[in-house]
């Protein structure tokens, strides 16, 4: 498109489209930066705890660098126009997580809980990057996923129900969200269900959004949907309540319902869905909390962590001292933190390197460090939503916004829980916390976002010569 315009100041300007640069070299430079920072942190932890550079410094740096390099080459080969920030941001978060997990491994007070968590986490990260590469290779076009709308719904339901089946269920500390795989360890299928559900919601809402958006009555400034259009939202609501009741997992339940509401809002542009969603989730949470002891205990720990701490110290069963200890960790970190390896957040004990890993960041890097970490998450979400804006097909738009919304919700739920903003739920901080399922699933999520952004940012092909151009009839003066 090229044309001239006359503005009143008699300038002539040419408007033409810019070919989008692929930005792969920017990505490479950022990746190098993203590998150097965790290596620096690793050296810092070693110097602070053992007074010497850690022996594994070189191999750790090479390992992380190799993962980043493989990811980068795969993106360069299979998704050359993809967003340049997603991969470096994820690599940096994964690297920092590895450092802090290793730092907690070094703690003598913790060593009994998770022996050698860091090497395992490095292995999980490698599996995650392998899955990212596989997504980039085998998913040539994200619109293929649209064909599997209802299959992914069935898959997601299966994944969510698996932890309830007696033979393979591995209930741990009150929440039934793990399954046992003989010989391999445990798996958290909910993390993978997240992606499958995003695919289902995107495919479903793309077809139904006109009915949901337009067939409604206006009442007091809100668009009230018709009764029969409320069906799907009620089904998702009931399902998330069932997850809450049978798996006693507040986080997963909130994540799925929240993701559905976000995607419903984006698909229909109706604020009323958000109002309905908030009302329904509040009603559901309050209703379940009134009879489910596990949830009640979490709410108690949120409302009065100090009391919980004291009860737990007295050795009364069913109380937790972690919430209060996490708050103390944040408090003793202050603005600039105590320095890596020099805090006492390992006193949190159980789950210090998974659910509560943010408390270690809070103590050793302080407010400044936690803000930077949250900004890194924010940037990933921003890139996801930017991808959604740039995507040219409605399915890709919805899928990108659903995946980044789920990512954002997960960070909010776990960070808010550790900081005492909302009741704590057993979720993992993406990329940072120790846990194989979470790391692997989130790398796959980044892979899908990279694929959508590659399609969205790829320069549009030149318009084909229009076949009906000759068919324009010429007016002949009669």
């Amino acid at each position: 498109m090229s044309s001239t315009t006359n503005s009143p100041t008699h300038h002539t300007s040419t408007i033409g489209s810019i070919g989008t640069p692929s930005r792969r070299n920017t990505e490479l430079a950022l990746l190098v930066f993203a590998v150097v920072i965790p290596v620096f942190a690793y050296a810092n932890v070693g110097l602070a705890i053992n007074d010497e550079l850690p022996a594994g410094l070189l191999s750790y740096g090479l390992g992380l660098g190799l993962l980043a390099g493989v990811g980068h080459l795969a993106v360069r080969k299979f998704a050359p126009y993809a967003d340049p920030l997603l991969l470096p941001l994820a690599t940096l978060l994964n690297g920092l997580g590895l450092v802090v997990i290793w730092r907690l491994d070094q703690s003598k007070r913790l060593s009994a809980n998770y022996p050698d968590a860091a090497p395992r986490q490095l292995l999980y990260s490698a599996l995650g990057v392998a899955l990212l590469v596989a997504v980039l290779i085998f998913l040539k076009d994200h619109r293929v996923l649209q064909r599997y709308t209802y299959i992914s719904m069935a898959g997601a339901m299966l994944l969510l129900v698996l932890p309830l089946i007696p033979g393979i269920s591995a209930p741990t500390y009150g929440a039934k969200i793990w399954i046992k795989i003989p010989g391999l360890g445990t798996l958290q299928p909910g993390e993978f269900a997240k992606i499958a559900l995003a695919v289902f919601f995107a495919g479903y809402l793309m077809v139904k959004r006109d009915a949901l958006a337009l067939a409604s009555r206006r009442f007091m400034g809100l668009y009230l949907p018709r009764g029969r259009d409320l069906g799907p939202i009620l089904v998702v609501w009931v399902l998330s309540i069932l997850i809450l009741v049978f798996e006693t997992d507040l986080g997963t339940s909130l994540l799925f319902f929240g993701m559905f509401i976000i995607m419903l809002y984006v698909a229909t542009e109706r604020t009323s869905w958000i109002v309905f969603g908030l009302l329904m989730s509040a009603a559901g949470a309050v209703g379940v909390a009134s009879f489910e002891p596990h949830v009640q205990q979490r709410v108690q720990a949120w409302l009065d962590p100090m009391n919980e701490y004291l009860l737990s110290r007295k050795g009364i069963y069913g109380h937790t001292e972690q919430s209060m200890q996490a708050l103390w960790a944040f408090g003793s970190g202050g603005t600039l933190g105590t320095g890596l390896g020099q805090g006492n957040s390992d006193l949190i004990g159980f789950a210090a390197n998974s659910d509560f890993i943010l408390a270690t960041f809070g103590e050793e890097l302080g407010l400044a460090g936690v803000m930077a970490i949250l900004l890194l998450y924010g940037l990933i979400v921003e890139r996801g939503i930017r991808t959604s804006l740039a995507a040219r097909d409605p399915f890709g738009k919805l899928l990108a916004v659903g995946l980044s919304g789920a990512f954002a919700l997960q960070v909010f739920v776990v960070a808010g829980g550790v900081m005492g903003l909302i009741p704590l739920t057993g979720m993992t901080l993406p990329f940072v916390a120790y846990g194989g399922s979470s790391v692997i699933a989130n790398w796959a999520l980044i892979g899908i976002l990279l694929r959508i952004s590659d399609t969205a940012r790829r320069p549009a092909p030149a318009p084909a010569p229009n076949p009906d151009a000759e068919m324009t009839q010429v007016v002949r003066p009669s």
Partner: protein
Amino acid sequence: MSELTLTVMRLGFLAVLWLFVIVAVQVIRSDLFGTRVTQRGSRREAARPQQAQRQQQAPPQQRQQSAGGRRGRNAPTKLVVSEGTLTGTTVALQGQTITLGRAHDSTIVLDDDYASSRHARIYPDRDGQWIVEDLGSTNGTYLDRSRLTTPTPIPLGAPIRIGKTVIELRK
């Protein structure tokens, strides 16, 4: 390890972490892409290529929005098809370019044998004045009764004829 070294490392690490965040934000800033606007014609502009460079960076939406904000009271708010198969169709004018033609990616797809596939477009200039421009169509675009040869500002209510279709801008 001395206290001083650890303090320097602690503050250095935070600085490096924030530097990464800032670099990432800079990448986002340089990543805003859209249409390229090159100044030419005026010799004064040509002598200052840097300014033209800076103009390129500005995302087009901003220009259009600011143009929309500056529209006066008599600015048209909608485009109405008053004759032809699409009679009665209205399009809200919100600072976006409207393309007309038989091509299916046009804003208004004309089902009109005498229209070209990319016939004309209507867009706001920097002051919010709406301009109609013929895109080299076979049968031409007429404003009132005169055939367009250059991009021309559209008076309120003036009929624009494309094939058998007539559109006008209204308040």
